[in-house]
């Protein structure tokens, strides 16, 4: 029974978090500086998700700087910037990671 209580809490809490602003709570209750800068959310979210994943490797003792990922990430950044193509970015990044992880 404890299990179902836990997943109910996770499910309802997550739905509340995901839907509260999507349902229009925002415009009346949030400060103006935030509403004026909503266009900053996508680039900052994506940059914050991407940067650690292109620098650190997960190890049993935590996150550690991993050079092949940094080099492959830099290459993939160039591919993404010039091609604007999701598939090419994936292929370029994976190939470079394969290459650099054998070299270092």
């Amino acid at each position, binding site marked *: 029974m404890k299990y179902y209580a836990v997943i109910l809490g996770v499910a309802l809490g997550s739905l509340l978090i995901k839907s509260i*602003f*999507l349902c229009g709570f925002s415009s009346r209750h949030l400060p103006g500086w935030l509403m004026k800068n909503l266009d900053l959310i996508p680039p900052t979210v994506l940059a*914050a998700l991407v940067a650690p*994943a292109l620098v650190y490797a997960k190890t049993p003792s935590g996150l550690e700087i991993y050079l092949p990922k940094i080099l492959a990430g830099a290459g993939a950044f160039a591919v993404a910037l010039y091609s*604007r193509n999701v598939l090419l970015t994936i292929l370029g990044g994976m190939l470079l990671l394969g290459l650099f992880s054998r070299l270092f």
Partner: protein
Amino acid sequence: MPILQSSPDTPPATPTKRQAFRRGGISVLPILLGVFPFSLVLGFAMKESGLSPLQSASFAASVLAGTAQLATVQLYAAATPGVLIVITALVINLRYAMYGLSMEPLVRHTSIPVRIFYAYIMSDQSYAFTMAEAEEHPGHPHITSFFLGASLVLYVFWQGGIALGYLLGSVIPSWLPLDFTIPLVFLSLLMPHLKDGKRRFAAGAAALGALVMVPLLPLQTGLLAAILTGMGGGILYEFFASRNPRKKETTS
């Protein structure tokens, strides 16, 4: 035809709902390379932590939030107190509040029950693809159909992957770092948003903030702190750029 690009140069002038839905569904296909293995891992983790098929299926169906789900399963297997599990999962999911906030202008014409459904099927990936599409085609008439197409394709593969992972066990060879494809896709989706100095500076500040804070702060709170750092950086950038006309950026 550049269907699989995140930014084709020639979109249909006035796409129908159906076309927007299809375009959304097709646009997320490349990221399945990264998402599908993640769902296999989650399904496998559910089995490993001793959850019954019914327990696994009800958890998979009740919420769509990969990282939080994996954390919940691991903590449950480690006999963590229930309250702590729920708090951990919700903290990991706090970023979704930011997603809802920035997507709200796109769904303003829809009813509350529909928006709650959108919230349920929203994922990191469908959010990112939809915002990239909206950035490249301002005033897109059927952006919600695009979102729905993208979300449903991801949803079906996500649930299928959990079921397969539960049934088959660990089938992804460990030497193949497919999880690396997820940041690569996000990197590609980041590009359309880097249109002016304010947003470039904000993204740079968020990236630096994440590099420092994600390893230091617990429970993925580093991620949220980095997002707020980036937004603060962007706001400061605009403040100083407007006070110094010589450095003022022209929005392209």
